[in-house]
């Protein structure tokens, strides 16, 4: 009963004045910040926090979370239209989103991305409210050994993402791992693969690579081919296709639900990060889909999976921040600063004395996600039309947007060169039929896997493999690898017997 009181108190808080008005004010800011590469939620929070001075906690958090909840919703739009992710986690949206635009389905992709962002965000908030009673054991069950196993599970997805040739996929994935090792090695303090270039000491940013591998590579391809992004395709779907995308989300509701849950779970455990959440969901979609051969060529399921993940993780990311005072992401670390400004202490009291405040945050996440999509959906149709422009108009636009995004993300001019280099590599991969997904996955997981392995070994030695959750994840991974092999073998045997 007490909980329900808090739920309603939270609702009243979130819809009250001035909290609701403040949230409405910051939602468009969040969307725009998300759309412009390099301006992430962190910067948004840093800019907004001074304004919360003097606000009551409910209004303050409505003001901040309204912006932060919808950043990735905005970030998917350039990912689909220009193959340039607005934020790191949106990188995964590029894989299916842009090929859809190329097929003339930009509207559908936008509709699906926006709707799944919204549903993911809302479900993430609801899951967050539901796990409050069991948050402690759940979050603390995952340590470095489990991270390592989760990363290995992600690596197993490489085989699914490889397209026609598993060998080529593994080569790309291995390349991704090597790229993730560029920079300072925490275990030895030695700089690896930097060739003496100081700017490589910090490693290579994922957005830098994705913009090159996808946007620049597509520009090269388009330049050589002529035509628009959606070359030769008239908008064949009724209207702009936006509604079709919305419908897709509901026909794939089960996938949407699972990916929202996975995204939220991953975000709850600081250490894997939002980039990994979106990619693991993409892999999960691939693993369970019935239309495997459409993936990589613009499959709406891929867009739904990734976008549900990156918005649902905002709810999950709040949990460790509220429960332990340990922020789940760098954005949450800045949010923790806001606790001090607003005079609230995180920790157990959050869930006893301030439960209504927690629920007001849940409601803000729900409202912000719905309102953001209500703003974007009517505009999606017009935005999609941009993809039907002539190549000669589009190329300079995509190229400058992508390179600017690459520069703004790291503020390093040298990263533009890296982006261009990856553009050439990406074009080569496309031309010679190497899937680009595994390379990105390798970069995202490489560093996590390496660090988690080292830490696990120094904490537990080889016995880390036998920790209960770690061994369960390992079993699942092994099953996903060997079950198809066994299946193929059994099928062959059956055929042989039938032939006899």
């Amino acid at each position, binding site marked *: 009963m007490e909980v329900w009181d808090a739920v309603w108190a939270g609702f009243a808080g979130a819809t009250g004045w001035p909290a609701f008005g403040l949230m409405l004010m910051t939602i468009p800011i969040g969307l725009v910040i998300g759309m412009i590469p*390099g301006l992430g939620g962190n910067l948004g929070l*840093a800019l907004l926090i001074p304004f919360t001075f003097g606000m009551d906690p409910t209004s303050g958090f409505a003001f901040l979370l309204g912006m932060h909840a919808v950043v990735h919703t905005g970030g998917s739009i350039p990912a689909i239209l220009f193959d340039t992710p607005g934020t790191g986690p949106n990188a995964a949206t590029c894989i299916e989103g842009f090929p859809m635009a190329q097929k003339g389905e930009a509207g559908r992709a936008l509709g699906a991305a926006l709707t799944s962002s919204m549903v993911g965000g809302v479900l993430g908030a609801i899951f967050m409210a539901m796990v409050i009673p069991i948050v402690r054991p759940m979050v603390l069950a995952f340590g470095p050994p489990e991270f390592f196993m989760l990363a290995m599970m992600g690596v197993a997805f490489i085989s699914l993402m490889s397209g026609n040739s598993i060998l080529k996929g593994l080569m790309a994935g291995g390349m991704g791992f090597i790229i993730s090792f560029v920079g*300072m090695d925490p275990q030895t*303090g030695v700089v690896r693969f930097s060739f003496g270039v100081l700017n490589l000491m910090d490693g290579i940013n994922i957005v830098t690579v994705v913009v090159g591998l996808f946007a620049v590579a597509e520009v090269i391809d388009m330049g050589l081919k002529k035509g628009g992004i959606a070359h030769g395709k008239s908008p064949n779907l009724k209207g702009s296709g936006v509604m079709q995308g919305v419908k897709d989300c509901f026909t794939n509701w089960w996938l949407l639900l699972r990916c929202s849950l996975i995204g939220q779970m991953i975000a709850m455990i600081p250490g894997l990060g939002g980039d990994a959440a979106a990619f693991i969901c993409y892999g999960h979609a691939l693993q369970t889909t019935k239309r495997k051969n459409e993936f990589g060529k613009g499959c709406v399921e891929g867009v739904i999976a990734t976008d549900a993940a990156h918005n649902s993780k905002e709810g999950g990311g709040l949990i460790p921040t509220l429960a*332990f*005072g340990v922020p789940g992401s760098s954005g949450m670390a800045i949010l923790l600063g806001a606790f001090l400004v607003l005079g609230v*202490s995180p*920790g157990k009291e959050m869930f006893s004395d301030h439960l209504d405040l927690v629920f007001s945050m849940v409601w803000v996440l729900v409202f912000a996600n719905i309102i953001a999509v209500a703003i974007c959906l009517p505009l999606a149709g017009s935005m999609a039309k941009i993809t039907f422009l002539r190549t000669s108009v589009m190329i300079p636009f995509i190229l400058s947007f992508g390179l600017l995004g690459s520069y703004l993300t790291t503020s390093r001019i040298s990263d533009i060169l890296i982006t261009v280099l990856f553009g050439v590599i990406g074009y080569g991969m496309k031309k010679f039929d190497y899937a680009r997904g595994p390379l990105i996955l390798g970069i995202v997981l490489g560093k996590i896997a390496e660090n988690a392995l*080292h830490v696990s070994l120094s904490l537990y030695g080889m016995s880390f493999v036998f920790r209960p959750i770690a061994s369960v994840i390992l079993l699942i991974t092994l099953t996903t690898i060997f079950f198809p092999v066994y299946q193929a073998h059994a099928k062959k045997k059956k055929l042989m017997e039938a032939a006899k």
Partner: protein
Amino acid sequence: MQGNKEEIVTTKSRCSFFVVGVFLFLSFAATFDAAAAPADISFFKGKTVTYIVSTKTGGGYDTYARLVAKYMQKYLPGSKVIVKNVPGAGHIVGANTIYAAAPDGLTIGTFNTGLVYGQILGQEGIQFDLNKFSWIGKANSETRVVIVGAKTPYKTFKDLQDSKVPIKMPSSGVGSEDHNETLILAAALPVKFQPIPGYSGKEAEMAILRGEVPAVLGSYTGLYGLILAKEGRPVLQYGSENKIPGLENVPHINSMKLSPASRNMVNLVNAIDIIGRLTAAPPGMPAGRLEVLRDAYKKALTDPDLIKDAKKSSLDLDPAYGEEVQKLVAASINQPAENLKMLRDIIK
């Protein structure tokens, strides 16, 4: 007569000496004047000062820098102070850039004081000498803490020192500031700290919660979440000696009994933490212009509006200026050879 003439000559020459002297004095004064505030502050009129931040946008260094830049502009009338982010190689690229800039007062900037370790150890890529920077000031002193998990049996720092088993400590990586501090404190106090590299960012705090490691060290502002949530107990503070509410009963490292050699090590750690959020300019800057910048910095940091803005963003302030910072830096780097050798042996 002779004498008289001589006297006249002498008087004449005295006169001319006097005139020349006055003239020289005046011209000197004029030159001096040109080098002093009024004339040189006009140099900044219509000029753009670039404030280099050695990290990307959004973090603590960036926030402090934008605050300082905004108010320095106020005290350099007619100028425009813009912030430029030059991240790379853990602040080294930014520091190199500031060091190599023309010392005309139009390029200043900030970087992590932890680079002192890098310079002492001769880290790859460092193209600067911290001794030679023209130091303008620093905005904060960092209080650092050692925190033990709430469920661990350790109540005091003494308990940690008495531990028979090594105390595993999360560290972000070999060569990082927290890693170096862990090793130095382990050797100096002494305590059996064993750094476990590979914990990036907030992972270290999660390690405490999960009970993988019994203790963690870091800045108070980074760890106060754990303390507020009662998930960790602070058992030792070091760095700044400023009183922080909630840490009244936590002993400071300066009150521990240590051998002179250990005290030297601890002083180095403290010094690096005290010079927080620094502002520096390239070496070889004309004295007058440096004076103007130092003056503007001091006025900025004491501006009530800046103090109000800092409070709004929960940024702590504990400023120090010009010469004082220069001395602090010099004291931390210019250690006797045997100290340096000991340091290198510990950190290596």
